[in-house]
């Protein structure tokens, strides 16, 4: 039962993430409806209407040369304001809280997913130093960006009543500067991540079975998985694709004086914030599954090694490969490699005898 519920939850979680994404897309679409236009013909009405739509027929010029100085009225600004103040802040908060409570509820009901056979002590190597360093660089930078970004998004209604304008603005300024500064680091580590993990994350034939069997809901057999299973691969592509979208739009926002028009910046902000909300929401699931959620998973990112039982249960095809290639190492050797055995056996024996 445990196994089934577990996989079922994973499925539900995956589909919920997808649903959220679609909802947000629709929400944006809804705001995109045209503002009601006046039907009354007033003097020069056609001209001013065109001005309002930023579609003046002839040449629009200004002696003042700067960003958008020849745009008299940017009507999209109003739509953007509406998006940020009504859709983004409200739905964003709901999405984040909902995902958080679903995870929390699941943890309360189901608890930690233990390996059915317990740990064997025999380990296999899974991630190199470089891969782990990269993962944690990305993770730390992501957490920092998420925190600072959320402060800028939700800070006004939450913190200003608590801290007052002056103190909050110090935090907000620090958040903004930090957010701008760490953004490019996120992009760099994301690109490195793309290169070093992409080969193992290309969908393969086994993944189709994973999907067809609903990740194991139907039938009682193991869900098959290679080095990464279908769910992990999907998470990878979410990170890469949405991450790249966030980074690209972020770069547009971070340098406002490059000459891009305001509409481009406003659209970038929409992409940036929706992408961020989705990524934060899904990452909460990833963080839960990687730490508290499943026994033995965090080990792979801490030491680079995993228990063979863990591999057999979550990545059976990869585990078989490890068995075939004789890549298992004993618990003792593992402890040695990790520098955990400081005392050598002969010495401790001698010390025992002395006592």
């Amino acid at each position, binding site marked *: 039962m445990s196994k089934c519920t577990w996989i079922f939850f994973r499925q539900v979680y995956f589909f919920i993430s997808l649903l959220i994404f679609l909802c947000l897309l629709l929400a944006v679409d809804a705001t995109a409806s045209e503002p009601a236009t006046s039907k009354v013909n007033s003097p020069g009405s056609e001209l001013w209407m065109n001005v309002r739509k930023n579609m003046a027929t002839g040449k629009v010029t200004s002696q003042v040369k700067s960003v958008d100085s020849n745009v008299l009225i940017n009507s999209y600004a109003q739509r953007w304001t509406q998006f940020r103040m009504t859709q983004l802040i409200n739905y964003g908060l709901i999405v984040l809280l909902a995902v958080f409570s679903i995870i929390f509820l699941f943890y309360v009901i189901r608890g930690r997913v233990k390996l059915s056979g317990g740990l064997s002590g025999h380990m296999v190597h899974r991630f190199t*130093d470089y891969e782990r360093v990269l993962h944690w660089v990305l993770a730390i930078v992501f957490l920092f960006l998420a925190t600072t970004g959320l402060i800028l998004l939700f800070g006004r209604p939450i913190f200003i009543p608590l801290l007052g304008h002056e103190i909050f603005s110090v935090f907000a300024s*620090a958040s903004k*500067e930090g957010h701008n500064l760490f953004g490019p680091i996120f992009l760099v580590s994301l690109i490195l991540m793309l290169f070093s993990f992409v080969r193992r994350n290309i969908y393969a034939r086994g993944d189709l079975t994973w999907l067809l069997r609903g990740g194991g809901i139907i039938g009682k057999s193991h869900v098959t998985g290679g080095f990464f299973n279908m769910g992990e691969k999907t998470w990878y592509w979410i990170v890469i694709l949405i991450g790249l979208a966030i980074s690209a739009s972020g770069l547009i926002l971070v340098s406002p004086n490059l000459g891009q028009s305001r509409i481009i910046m406003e659209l970038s902000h929409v992409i940036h914030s929706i992408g961020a909300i989705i990524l934060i929401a899904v990452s909460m699931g990833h963080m839960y599954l990687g730490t508290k959620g499943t026994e033995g998973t965090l080990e792979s990112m801490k030491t680079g090694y995993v228990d063979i039982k863990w591999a057999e249960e979550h990545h059976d095809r990869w585990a078989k490969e490890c068995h075939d290639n004789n890549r298992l190492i004993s618990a003792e050797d593992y402890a040695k490699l990790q*520098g955990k055995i400081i005392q050598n056996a002969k010495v401790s024996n001698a010390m025992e005898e002395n006592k």
Partner: protein
Amino acid sequence: MIMDFIDGPFWYFSLIVFFSGIIWNMGSIVFALSKVDLSVSRGSAVSGAIKTIFTRFAADKGMAPHIRLQIIAGYMFHLGLFALLFFAAPHILFLEEHFLGFGWTPMPHWAFIIASEFAFLGLLILWLHRILNPVSRLISTADDHIASILTFVVMLTGCLALLESFTALRLLHRFSVELFLIYFPFSRLMHAFTFIPSRAFTGAWFGRRGISS
């Protein structure tokens, strides 16, 4: 009140600790040179020492593939920090006003940003490598982590105060710098200075034997 303390007495205290600590540490190394080597030398110790001070900036060719991450991250961090320290406009202005009386051309804002990106990414990689690699995890001490984190905090507060308009953020940076300066002479951070005599000693030793090291 706190502002006056951070800008005033605490700042001078940290400077005194920093400089006297360095002079003491370096003095106890430089002025207590070991006794003369009596064996017949094959090469020059002095030229060996000078050469090694510079040759150790580059890794051995055969070694490089095994320590690529440390080399790249190490250079990113150290060069980035060096640029931030000596070529950031506010730093030059500060040095000019309080110490030197002259300044030099600061790097443009975009260069500052790039330098700090490099420094942050480098330090982050180095510190994570320290935690995640069994070798460096085994040999690292609390000091190493404190030094890494303190450096990170100094850089972070500096960059958070980039807008240069919030006194609180500037003070935070100043305060973290002061902690850093006080911690410096008592810690691993001293390697910024002691690497010179260390390389020189080793270089001299090898130089006498006619080996380039």
